[in-house]
């Protein structure tokens, strides 16, 4: 018998299959790699390049302190707080939060999902059957800030978001309106008699909700801290030397001061070590047109007490300072200190004309030594 052989093409195909699989597995198994980005686009600007804190980036609905320059785009709101109402701490989705007595709460939230879905969710919380969209159109309307919002008034047994035991004899009063993709809601829930009593106050506060004016605090009146320029929340505190004026908040800076004309001093925090002390010391030296130092040379620099550590103190006088925008200033000086604290690089830096910086030298060291974690 002559063996019948498979056509060669089929054999090649069969041989190719495991090879292709092997190559695929091999490539998939490759770990860390370096890749050159080839897709480079010149295009219309899509981002605003406004620096934001992690809180502003990840929790934009939480009301952050007013930040002035470099602040979030979030609209700050104000309202006229009725008598007997108290402001409660904000939670992630509440733009305003109030307590009325022990069991009654009222809050303003901006959410999604549309009117129909939200109203039926509320009805479910009150143990009521869903309503059709047509029925909702018959709801009365009242003012919620600048909007004409639907009034939702429900009575029943209230089961909160946690889905625990239903509280009997409750009432829910809500105002709801859709603006573009956002559903804006003001909602009050509590024992029926309290909600009924506070009904006029509820509509008054709803009508009073407005964009917060400069210097105004949320519940009307002036904000005593607004002019000072609030800084991002920090777990550090310090004492500013006498005569130092606080500057506007800036990107990646915890605080900025102006000790004298043309002189600025600021504390910045970089997460994950910011590359470490050595590279950042040499970055500052590069800004002053000085050659980099070795690690041993950095170790031999003068020291200043910073957050309980001996931090290297840089004193670079009479050089050409090039700031981060690439602007060069002759006859400038830079004083700086830095240390690593809980994985973060903490830097304090003062720049300005040499004579003025020299005058502020002792104040700068005192400023460094005053920095401490909030207890």
């Amino acid at each position, binding site marked *: 018998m002559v063996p019948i052989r498979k056509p060669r093409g089929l054999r090649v195909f069969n041989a190719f299959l495991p090879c292709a699989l092997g190559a695929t597995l091999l490539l998939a198994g490759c770990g860390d790699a370096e*890749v050159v980005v080839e897709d480079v686009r010149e295009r219309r600007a899509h981002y605003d390049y406004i*620096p934001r804190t992690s809180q502003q980036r990840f929790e934009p609905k939480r009301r952050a302190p007013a930040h002035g320059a470099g602040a979030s785009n979030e609209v700050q709101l104000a309202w006229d707080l009725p008598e007997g109402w108290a402001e409660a701490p904000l939670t992630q989705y509440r733009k305003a939060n109030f307590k009325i007595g022990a069991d009654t709460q009222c809050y303003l939230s901006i959410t999604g999902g549309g009117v129909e879905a939200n109203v039926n969710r509320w009805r479910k919380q009150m143990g009521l059957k869903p309503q059709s969209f047509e029925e909702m159109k018959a709801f009365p309307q009242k003012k919620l800030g600048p909007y004409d919002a639907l009034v939702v008034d429900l009575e029943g047994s209230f089961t909160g978001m946690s889905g625990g035991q239903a509280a009997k004899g409750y009432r829910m009063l809500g105002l709801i309106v859709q603006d573009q993709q956002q559903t804006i809601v003001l909602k009050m829930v509590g024992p029926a008699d309290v909600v009924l009593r506070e009904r006029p106050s509820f509509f008054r506060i709803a009508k009073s909700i407005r964009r917060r004016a400069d210097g105004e605090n949320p519940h009307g009146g002036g904000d005593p801290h607004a002019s000072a320029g609030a800084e991002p929340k920090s777990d550090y505190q310090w004492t500013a030397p006498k005569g130092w004026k606080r500057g506007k908040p800036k990107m990646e800076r915890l605080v900025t001061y102006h000790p004298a004309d043309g002189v600025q001093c600021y504390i910045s925090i970089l997460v994950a070590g910011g590359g470490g002390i050595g590279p950042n010391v040499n970055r500052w030296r590069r800004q002053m047109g000085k050659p980099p130092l070795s690690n041993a040379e950095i170790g031999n620099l003068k020291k200043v007490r910073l957050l309980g550590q001996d931090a290297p103190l840089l004193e670079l006088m009479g050089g050409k300072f090039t700031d981060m925008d690439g602007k060069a200033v002759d006859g400038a000086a830079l004083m700086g200190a830095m240390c690593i604290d809980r994985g973060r690089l903490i830097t304090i830096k003062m720049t300005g004309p040499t004579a003025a910086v020299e005058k502020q030298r002792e104040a700068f060291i005192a400023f460094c030594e005053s920095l401490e974690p909030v207890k």
Partner: protein
Amino acid sequence: MTTMTEETQVPETATVTVKHESIGQRVVNLLASFGLTITILLFLMVLTFFGTIEQTDTNLHDIRTKFFDSFFFTTDTIPFLPLPGGALLLTLLAVNLFVGGLLRLRRTPSRVGIFIIHIGIAWLLLSGLVEFVFGVKGYVQIFEGESASRFLSHNEWQVTIAHQTADGKERAFVIPPEKLPEPGSTTKFTAEGLPFAVELRGYLRNCRVNAAGHGTGMDGYTFKRLDDAEEPQNNRPGVTAKLIEPGGVTREAMLHSMAEPYVTRMAGQRWALTIERQSWELPFTLKLRKFHKEEHPRTNVPSRFASDVTRTEDNVDHDIHISMNEPMRYAGYTFYQSGWGPQNVPRGTPIKRYFSVFSVGKNPADRGPLYACIVIACGLVYHFIRKLRLHLRSENRRRA
């Protein structure tokens, strides 16, 4: 091509003739064979079977990617056996059709119609291949009065590193989805003109950002890994990025698809880093002037919706009307009116601005299927007319 034939003597009874063909001839024979056609069709049946069964647990996008866009796939039933995927089978079918139906078909007048039909089918398959390899699909959402110059992917994500240029525009370095690191691995990216390297690690297909408090995670935040969303467009990926200057200065940030871009200063410039839907730039801008909709009586269900848009290219405006069955085709792009918003708004609630959603496709073989069908129709018409003529002639002959 010559064929050599020799006879081999087999003991006693049988004489077997073995044709020694060249390798090329054998390959052509294999590719042109009906056996291959049948095998491919059987595998396509298997593919469709598994693709359909798996839809009970998986979404349509993942099914398409796993079974129909792939060269090989495996199933949970027989995980050790890779089976040919849609891309491989259709490629083979095209080759089989081309070689068997076009190259080796006897070119007689009686076969002209069949030959034309084969050309049409090959064209259809080729169009599919071109779309598979070069085509992109996405969407763009535009509010009235606003314009767009790029469209976005429904399911894929990219990391973008951008800075503003002196003319107020933007220079963006885009890391495409296929280059993003696998979960658990780290990839370092460099680029000509990028003054620092970017290291990406800990890529998660679907996650949320948790506020872990000061001293925990990065700046008090951590990623919480989530299961993949049922529909891939609802996944919200995140990744950790580290920017490394040549001097060793670094910045580190968490990028999340729902968060604003991370903005920092490096090398004297402000840079924005973000993970966002994969995007493609358009060679023109499209501005939505007005959105129109008509509703069925006493309902909010639209019976018809359309958009008046202005396409601007090289400072020249063109006013265009796009509706559900009237797409805009231009420069290889097709814009279909696919959606609008905001929806679920009770009647009487003031809506300041509507937005339109356009499905956007870029497919170099956009009109391929249409032309292929015309060719197939021509082939069929020719073939059937010829058959009819022959039939009538034989009938006449029989009657005579």
